[in-house]
Structures are given as structure tokens and as C-alpha cells.
């Protein structure tokens, strides 16, 4: 019997939770705020779904209802991607070691 591809995705999901668990515990507490802003930025990879949604259907009707939701999602996700990575960068730039 063939294995349902869903099972593979579930395996990826569960293994990733474990990876996340160990990686996040190794994050130093002083970088918890950048951790939040960067997780926020990477969760905006949901833009992948938004792009598929926006470009679906025939080219005569670019703005069908389902496409519109795609376009809106693109804007929201883009705010997050650029905002999230840049503000993380800005914060990380400030962390400096003692000058000897």
C-alpha cells in the first residue's frame, strides 16, 4: 500500500517542531526580542500562498474575488517581510561587545 503524502508532510512538521525546540532553547535570552521579530519575518513566507492565489485563473480576470484576497495577503506579508528583517537587522547592529 502506498503511503499518503500527508504522512510525509506530517513527519516534516513534527521533526521541525523538535528542531525548533532545540534551536530556540539555544538562543541567548538577551536576543529574545530579535528572535520574536525574525520569527515574525520568516512566518511571512506565507506570501508563497498569497502569490499563488493572486496569480491563479485566467489573465483576462486579474482581479477576481479570490485573486483580490491574494493581492491583499501579498501586501500584508510584504510589510512583515521587509519590516521584520530590517528591524531585526537594526536591533542586531546595536549589540556590541565591550571595547578593550
Amino acid at each position, binding site marked *: 500500500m502506498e503511503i499518503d*503524502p500527508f504522512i510525509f*508532510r506530517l513527519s*516534516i512538521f513534527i521533526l*521541525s*517542531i523538535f*528542531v*525548533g*525546540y532545540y*534551536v*530556540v532553547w*539555544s538562543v*541567548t*535570552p*538577551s*536576543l*529574545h*526580542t*530579535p*528572535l*520574536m*521579530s*525574525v*520569527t*515574525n519575518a*520568516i*512566518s511571512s*513566507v*506565507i506570501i*508563497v*500562498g498569497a*502569490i*499563488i492565489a493572486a*496569480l*491563479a*485563473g485566467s*489573465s483576462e480576470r*486579474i482581479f477576481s474575488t*479570490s*485573486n483580490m*484576497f491574494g*493581492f491583499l*495577503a*501579498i*501586501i*500584508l*506579508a*510584504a*510589510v*512583515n*517581510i*521587509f*519590516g*521584520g528583517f*530590517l528591524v*531585526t*537587522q537594526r*536591533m*542586531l547592529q*546595536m549589540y556590541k561587545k565591550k*571595547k578593550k
Partner: protein
Amino acid sequence: MSANLSAFFYLISGILFILALRGLSSPETSRRGNYFGIAGMAISILVTFLSVGNFGPGFIYVLIFLLIGGSVGAFIAFKIPMTAMPELVAGFHSLVGLAAVFVAISAFLNPDAFNLGTVANIKLASLIEMSLGAAIGAITFSGSIIAFLKLRGIMSGSPITFKGQHLINLVLGLTIIFLIFYLCLSQSSNIFWSIVIISFLVGVLLIIPIGGADMPVVISMLNSYSGWAAAGIGFTLENSALIITGALVGSSGAILSYIMCKGMNRSFFNVILGGWGANEQSTTLESKEQKPVKNGNADDAAFLMKNASSVIIVPGYGMAVAQAQHALREMVDALKKNGVKVSYAIHPVAGRMPGHMNVLLAEANVPYDEVFELEEINNDFANCDVAYVIGANDVTNPVAKSDPQSPIYGMPVLDVEKSKSVLFVKRSLSPGYAGIDNDLFYRDNTLMLFADAKKMTEEIVKSL
């Protein structure tokens, strides 16, 4: 691009995202980590364009919308003051949540585009995944909006509670599960919309009973939700980059909530079910008898610190409110010139989000190797001459160690009272967030400095 090839590239993005988080294990590697994250995102977006392969007029619009959103995001990222980080993060969470809802709606309206079947005949598994993604996304959205309003001060930070609150949440939660079940049977779009609307409502109801100082838990929790929403959508779209990211973000937020709860010695449910401030206030008023406090001014403080050999600074949310971090750094510089050894002690729940104080100190050019976590520095208070408490309160209260009746009993606190003298900058004697009196105010070795944190620190700099 073939489906297999693009799946492979999505896997690479997922790995780059893991490396982005891994980089945060130390400030040195963190900047490189962030570039990994950016690369992962760029790969995901490019691969999606290539695998959709539609470069018609719609593509131009996609680029335009991407640029609009991107410029708004970049503008915010450069303009936002560091003290506003908590509300910025809450705001960003709401956007992820709403984007998840929109993608789910779009997939529901046009399942063909995602290979999920046809309208009113969507694959069962996909239907469950997309409605879960939409529900969690909607909860994340409205919950984050409430958190944002509370952090921004537009909405009062005090908990809003009413009778039967938890019952209503429970009923609404069960309704969502029932509706998802019913959606699978009927494929009706009305049911789908009802799920989305009820979830928006649940998000609001879930966050309103939680008070201002519990916000570190709330923000971490919403962070976690935004991850689970992304994972739900990832399952719908059969996209491994989204599934991996969702799992990473979900567990990251969960761990942060756990750390925050532990920092307050409270269970997660105790925080989520609401309000310290609400029921504890009555006890405050009773115990409020007049006790003598020692009152000092900037000159006294400057004299004490100048003649100390070591000083530990304990910052809290009040420092963020008063924007006193730069003045504080100047004070420390002046002390260092006098040969005083200075370090900073950060309690896990100081501020309004995890790591809030560390970012503010970094902004004021405080080197991160002078800043210590509770466990690292707590033993040093006994050997330190002066502890300078600026804007912190409950996290220094020795009652947490001595009085089992106290609501904060058992919470890990900084052993500030063990230092030879304590300088406590505060505007008045009012109790902190937990609504209890701080025993520290009345100790013999405590000198109260009644003033705004920033003004007082500046005055101390002058008299140094």
C-alpha cells in the same frame, strides 16, 4: 519549474530559516543568521514565481503590491523607536494572522489554483487544514490587535473581565470545532465565513482579560499562534517551507511563553485565564499602613555610587516608559571613570516583551557582556555596594521569598536587598503591577529617590 525541483528549493529555504534562528545563539553570529533568513525568503518567493510561471499582467501587479507592502514595512522598520518594539511585534503578528486568513479564503474560493479539488468539492483533508489555518490566523489577528492597543496605551492595560467569560470562550471554541466538522459535510461557504468571524471574536475575548504586565506571555503566545496558522496553510498548500517555518515559529513562541511564565512562577493557564491585578487589589489596601521610608536626592545617590566599588543596575519597564536608557549609560560612563565596576541585572519578565530591556540597553550602546540574566548575577548582589533599581518593582520584592500568603510568592526575584545599599528610583510609593506593596521600600539600607527615572538619572550625572 517542476514540482519536485521547487519542493527541493522550498526545503532549502526551510533549512536557511533554521540557520537564521540558530544564529541567534550569540550576538556575533546573529547578523549572519539574519542574512540566512533573508536568503531563504528570497528563494521561496523566486521559486514560487517560477513554478506558477504566469508572467502576464497579473505578475506586474504582484510586484507592485510587493513593493508597496515592502516600502511600508521598511519605513516602519527604520522609523520605529526601540521603546515601541513590543507593540510593533504585536502589530506584525496581526498581519501574519490576517494574511493567513486571506490565503485560506482565497484557497476556499478558488481551490483549483491550489490543486485542492473544485469549488464545493474540496478535498476533505485540505478543507480541515484550511479552516484550521483560517481560524488560528483569525484568532492571531484580532488577539494581536487587542495586544497592540493595550501596549500602545490606546486601550487600558487593566484586565477586562466579566462573568461567564471562560464559559463563553469554551462554547465559542467548541462551536468552531463543530462548524469545521459541519463544513466537511456540507462544503457550504456560509459555514466557512462563520468560522472566520467566530474566530475573530475568540481572539478578542481571549486577550481582553489579560493585564499589561502579562504582555510578555501574550506576545509570545501570539507569536506561537502565528506559526501554527502558517503551518496550517502550509499543509493546505503542501508546501514544506511553510510547514517547517510554521513549526519553528510555533515552538519558538511556545518556549518563550514558557520562559515568561516561569519568570513569574505562574502557570500558562493562570496567565491566559486572566487578571492578577483584578482580584488581588483588595489585599493591597488592607496592608497599606504607613511605614517610614528613607528619602534621598540626586546628590546622596551620586555620593553613594561614586564611593562604591561595585554597582549593579536593575532596569525595568519604568526605564522604557521614561526613555531613561541613554541617561543611564551616561551615568554608568561617569561611574566607570571613577573606577566603579558596573553591571546590569535583567529579570526574565522585565519590560513588556522577552528581551525588551536588553534591546533598550543595546540601543544606548551598553556592551552586551555587561548585561546579565537573573541566574548569572543573583549571587553578586551580596558582594555589591549599591544596587540602582530603575523602573523595576515586583521583580525585586523580597516578599516573593518570605511570605507564602503573597500572590507573587515563589516568583524568582533579584536579591537586590542583599547589597549594602539600594537606590530605588520611583515616582511614588504606589505598588507595582501585581498590586502588592514592595517590602524593599522600608528596608534600612534602601534610599528612595522619588522622581522620574530619566530626570533623576540626569541629575545624578550632573552631581557626579
